[in-house]
């Protein structure tokens, strides 16, 4: 089985799919270094769009906002999602998994609209706080899922063994469960960070004046034209996401290991 090579047809179909997925991204990256205002033909290599970015205050502010939102909401979602994952694993409440994991399946537009309505009803002013709350709410499910799948693969007698050998419930959580869950928790945190920094739809509904994030800023720039500057900022965003995804895939083998 392991030595069996895929058939030529399957291989070329696979290559086509990946070309379809990655060529547009490659084009964005390439044109971000193109010394021309038009995304039409290759003129020459330049860093100037990146230099322009550094001096574009609104993009810098949006990037800063995105980073702050992603860090805070990932941190909050990680704590809450881990607790939710533990609670789901205990299985005392049958409805809990559906409740926590529901937002994963829910359309973003629905979450966005309903959160907007809630914030208006509760008189929460739209801004960083409302965006963070929104991001936490849809990230919890992903963290819970990562933690819970890790828990499901864990030998339950490890916790019993810890208690048996003299550890209090808190000690057995801190010394045994937590270290063993850590790969799942880190994977969940990275997922939450990526989802937060990339989110457009939900952020679009919950952002206010002055709290624009990078995806929102890119969108507003694109409304006029896809400038090389947009290409440059998209390339940077892609770089951040790819770095995290690569790190995540480095961690997930250890998530799957035990």
């Amino acid at each position, binding site marked *: 089985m392991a030595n069996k090579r895929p058939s030529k047809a399957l291989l070329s179909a696979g290559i086509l799919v990946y070309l379809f997925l990655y060529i547009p991204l490659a084009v964005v990256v390439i044109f971000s270094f193109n010394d021309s205002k038009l995304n039409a033909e290759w003129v020459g290599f330049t860093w100037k769009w990146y230099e322009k970015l550094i001096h574009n205050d609104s993009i810098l502010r949006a990037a800063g906002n995105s980073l702050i939102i992603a860090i805070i909401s990932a941190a909050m979602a990680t704590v809450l999602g881990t607790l939710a994952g533990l609670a789901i694993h205990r299985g005392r409440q049958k409805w809990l998994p559906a409740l926590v994991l529901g937002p994963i399946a829910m359309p973003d537009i629905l979450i966005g609209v309903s959160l907007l309505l809630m914030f208006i009803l509760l008189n929460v002013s739209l801004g960083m706080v409302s965006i963070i709350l929104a991001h936490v709410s849809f990230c919890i499910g992903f963290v819970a899922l990562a933690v819970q799948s890790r828990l499901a693969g864990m*030998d339950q*007698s*490890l916790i*019993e*063994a*810890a*208690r*048996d*050998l*003299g*550890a*209090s*419930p808190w*000690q057995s959580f801190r*010394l*045994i469960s937590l*270290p*063993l869950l850590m790969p799942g928790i880190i994977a969940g945190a990275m997922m939450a960070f990526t989802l937060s920094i990339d989110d457009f739809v939900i952020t679009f509904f919950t952002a206010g004046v002055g709290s624009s994030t990078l995806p929102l800023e890119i969108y507003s720039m694109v409304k006029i034209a896809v400038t090389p500057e947009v290409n440059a900022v998209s390339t940077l965003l892609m770089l951040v996401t790819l770095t995290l995804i690569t790190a995540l895939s480095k961690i997930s083998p250890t998530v799957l290991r*035990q």
Partner: protein
Amino acid sequence: MLEINAVSRSFGDFVALNNVSLHIQAGEFFTLLGPSGCGKTTLLRLIAGFDQADSGQILLDGKPLCALPPEKRPVHTVFQSYALFPHMTVAENIAFPLRMAKMSKAEIAHRVTEVLNDVRLPDKAKHYPDALSGGQKQRIAIARALVNRPRLLLLDEPLSALDAKLREQMQIELINLQKEVGITFVYVTHDQGEALALSHRIAVMNKGEISQIDEPSVLYSYPDNRFVADFIGQCNILDAKVLSGNEQKVNIAIAGLGEIAATANPEITFKSGDNCALTLRPEKIRLAASLEAEPDEALFSGKVHDMLYLGDVTVYIIELANGVLIEAMLANDAPGRTRLFDTGDAVQIAWRIDAGHLVP
């Protein structure tokens, strides 16, 4: 030392333990034996504190255990899966109970080295459990459970994951270890051979109740009931009816075989007309092409119906008149290749009337 008094535990409609009582002596190697679902593991979990009894009491050295959480009980468990902490080295695993007991670093280091020497794995201290073989994991799990000297060591099918050869070696190690440390062992297994080999006393359990508690040789030779006779070793169980009897001898009728004599069971008095069963171990039956009945022997003719060649012995299933099947066993102890009978051969079997044991 450990007293279990009228303990019951149910899970929904399933009665895992029904009014179980037993006493375990200090220093004893005590085994809970039974098929899966008989309640032996439930009882072990109650003693360890992972589960609570619905009713009844568990006393250790006269003090009730039930109110204490597992970490407060001087009882440690060796788990079937070993439950070694995968993110800790062997030394850290063994040090865990000592750390929990707030022992000094120097004392911990000293004890860990000592116990690693005891289980003959001194060079594995820095290894992670992943890098150990099954037998080594087993020894580390036992070392970890024994390192801070519990009053009681519970072992939950600890050898079931090992292959047969290694299992036998570990059995010998366990017997010697228990002798050395003098700690009371409560051992759970479904393997009757293992129970016979290891234990001072065995409690045979069935459907949440105790069928019999005795020393291995008593259990094997004088089972109290059909379940124990059938569960421990191989056994012919022949349904019979009591015809007449006195204190030494009972005459019974076995369907298809007619009237034969059997030794009375001192524990139970049988009245004429009672249903009973004659339990007869295959190795206590004489088997030959033709036999001369000794006094006090029952003798029957039949033919070889089936045979199982096991190397050291061959098990023959003998069909007697009227289709009664009896299992007999012959040692292949003659020099050279032994092949005594073939399927279909006419043979005779005989057993002393005190070789069989009557059970209700």
